[in-house]
């Protein structure tokens, strides 16, 4: 009984102990905030990494795409399957029941060129040829399209009337600027390749409305916009608007030679993942096939499973039988992003280890302050022993005191940590305003706000660790108190 009484009394009367409580509180609060932010980043990043990738990706290094042969009994007479036939073959396999959707794509490097304020700008990009409807079915596409995400139906590369008008205006302005003798840039691909697609039939008019034959392109948001700081405010300006003309230059599929095509911007992809928003451009699959001279071929298959966690291994195994070639790689989205995901986890683990040292420092302050308190309480220890307190009883007082300090510090730290986490964006804005330095530069992270995710289990683990450290560091002073000889303690001045 006396242990509990004295623990509480010491807590109420020893203001020195407040230092221990504050140390533990700050350590716990820091760990909770950092973990919540790291978890927020990690969760959001994983969501987005998964977002643009399907569950399973089948990809070939061959420039002319994946080659899957038919099942002709005569090996010499086997012919390569088209992407559609390949999809049908996969769906007919045992894996077919576990697959929700498949989308063949062409995925390759390219140069994006466009005019902005009178100068030609070139950017290296990753061009992906897709069938927008099937690509949307495997997920991670339509929900990131700035214009079409809320529209009903499958996404398309079609131009809006406003985009068409802008294109028409662009052509007029070009004609005025360059003179009537200079032909305006043609619509459609300006391809000099024999496999080039035919130019759109400008005369094909129906009821005075043009047929949507212009080839659209969906650009990563950051490719089409640039940010700059204006009087402390980050301004985002569109370099390319829907209806503007861009040129994609890439390498041919069959032979390594430059090929290119012109497209009109129709939408933006905004994943808030700077890697994707700065690099990805989507064009119609058939157009890219024609430009690259690889009709009826695809370099990748994006596959969405009905139950990812349950079926990923089985489907990967089945796919390995169908795509039986060393140049074809089959990977889940996690394997595909393995290094990045591993880096996040390692970073988080190291950060936790380093930050737990804060609690370690709090532990040392407990050790120092407890040693002082024990020295101060020599006589009290002697009195208690003369009244019949056991060594273990005296030790329990100081161990309990340490536990109590740790618990109070943890409760306060958890409250503070959760409050900071809940208000982290307001705090960041306040600090940025006061210091004039962006604490969280949004253009670097490409998040609108600091993402947070409080994991109750992790909060519990931080608390348990902190209480354990507080108790462990009070062990030595408590042991010293317990071993104190009562006569020496009573005579202590």
């Amino acid at each position, binding site marked *: *009984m006396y242990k509990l009484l004295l623990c509480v*009394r010491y807590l109420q*009367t020893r203001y020195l102990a407040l230092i221990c409580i504050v140390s533990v509180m700050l350590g716990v609060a820091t760990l909770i905030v950092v973990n919540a932010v790291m978890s927020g980043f990690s969760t959001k990043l994983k969501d987005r990494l998964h977002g643009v990738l399907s569950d399973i990706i089948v990809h070939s290094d061959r420039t002319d795409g994946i080659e899957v042969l038919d099942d002709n009994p005569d090996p010499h007479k086997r012919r390569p399957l088209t992407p559609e036939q390949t999809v049908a073959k996969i769906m007919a396999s045992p894996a077919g029941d576990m697959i929700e959707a498949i989308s063949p794509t062409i995925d390759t490097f390219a140069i994006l060129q466009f005019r902005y304020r009178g100068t030609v700008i070139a950017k290296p990009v990753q061009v992906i040829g897709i069938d927008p409807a099937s690509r949307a079915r495997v997920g991670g596409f339509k929900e990131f399209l700035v214009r079409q995400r809320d529209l009903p139906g499958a996404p398309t590369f079609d131009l809006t009337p406003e985009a068409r008008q802008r294109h028409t205006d662009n052509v007029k302005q070009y004609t005025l600027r360059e003179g009537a003798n200079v032909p305006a840039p043609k619509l459609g691909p300006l391809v000099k390749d024999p496999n080039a697609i035919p130019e759109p039939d400008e005369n094909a008019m129906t009821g005075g409305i043009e047929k949507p034959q212009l080839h659209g392109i969906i650009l990563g948001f950051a490719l089409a916009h640039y940010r700059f700081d204006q009087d402390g405010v980050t301004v985002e300006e569109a370099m390319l608007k829907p209806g503007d003309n861009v040129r994609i230059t890439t390498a041919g599929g069959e032979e390594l030679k430059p090929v290119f095509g012109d497209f009109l911007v129709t939408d933006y992809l905004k994943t808030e993942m700077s890697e994707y928003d700065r690099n990805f451009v989507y064009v119609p699959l058939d157009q890219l096939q024609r430009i690259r001279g690889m009709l009826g071929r695809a370099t990748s298959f994006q596959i969405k499973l009905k139950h990812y966690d349950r079926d990923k291994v089985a489907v990967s195994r089945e796919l390995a039988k169908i795509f039986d070639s060393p140049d074809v790689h089959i990977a889940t989205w996690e394997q595909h992003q393995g290094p990045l995901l591993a880096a996040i986890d390692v970073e988080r683990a190291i950060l936790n280890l380093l930050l737990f040292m804060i609690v370690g420092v709090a532990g040392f302050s407990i050790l120092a302050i407890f040693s002082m308190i024990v020295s101060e309480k020599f006589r*009290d220890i002697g009195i208690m*022993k*003369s*009244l*019949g307190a056991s060594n273990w009883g005296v030790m329990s007082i100081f161990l309990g005191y340490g536990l109590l300090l740790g618990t109070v510090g943890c409760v306060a730290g958890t409250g503070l940590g959760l409050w900071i986490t809940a208000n982290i964006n307001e705090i960041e804005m306040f600090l940025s305003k006061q210091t004039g330095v962006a604490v969280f530069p949004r253009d670097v992270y490409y998040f609108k706000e600091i993402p947070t995710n409080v994991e109750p289990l992790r909060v519990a683990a931080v608390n348990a660790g902190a209480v354990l450290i507080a108790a462990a560091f009070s062990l030595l002073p408590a042991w010293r108190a317990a071993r104190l000889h009562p*006569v020496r303690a*009573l005579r202590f001045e």
Partner: protein
Amino acid sequence: MLTAKNLCKFYRRHAVEVRVLNGLNLEVRTGEFLSIVGASGSGKSTLLHLLGTLDAPDAGEVRLDGARIDNLPGRARDALRNRTFGYIFQFYHLLPELSLLDNVLMPAYIGHSVLSWWQTRAQWRRRATDLVAKVGLSHRIKHRPRELSGGEMQRTAIARALLMNPRILLADEPTGNLDAAAGSEIVRLLREINREERVTIVMVTHNLDIVAATDRVVRMVNGVVTEDTSAGEKPWQPPFPQPRLAAV
């Protein structure tokens, strides 16, 4: 009742061995009020610590009702100090964080777990309140030690020592830090307790004024008993004239 036989206690200070008790023999009888006198360094307080199991002798033995208590395991000695012996110190030794009542209740707190305390707390509080009233401090029951005078603190310590109904009170210079009036009051209180509660008291003092109030006086010199008023018929006389204690 409480017997010390050939008690020896040495202290080692640097390389020098100091013999504090040197084969001391003493028997404390049931119900008596015994005072131990002697010069500073004669070993009075050390003897009290050994009798009360606060310390262990280097040689010899201490027996309570014929059973050795100096070599008991720690737990048993703790229990003896909690229930059989009551301590009163020169410097009162109250716990500064606790109120007067909590200080008096401390032996009961120590002797009970949370659960057993919860079950018996009312009776302990009643007893503590009665004892506080007996020592005349009812009006100070919620005060902290720093708010009490020396005499009041010593009376609190006496109430604390009596809480567990001990058989023996061990008082180490209980008036050493008090003025004459307060000292007289404390001795009067101890005498009253001795008579009314039938508690054996062993009091160490170097104040010869107060020994006349006790039943028996033992004199110590260099760690041995040199005089004991119970040994002969002649009552013990101080070596020089002493003023008589008033109101004892």
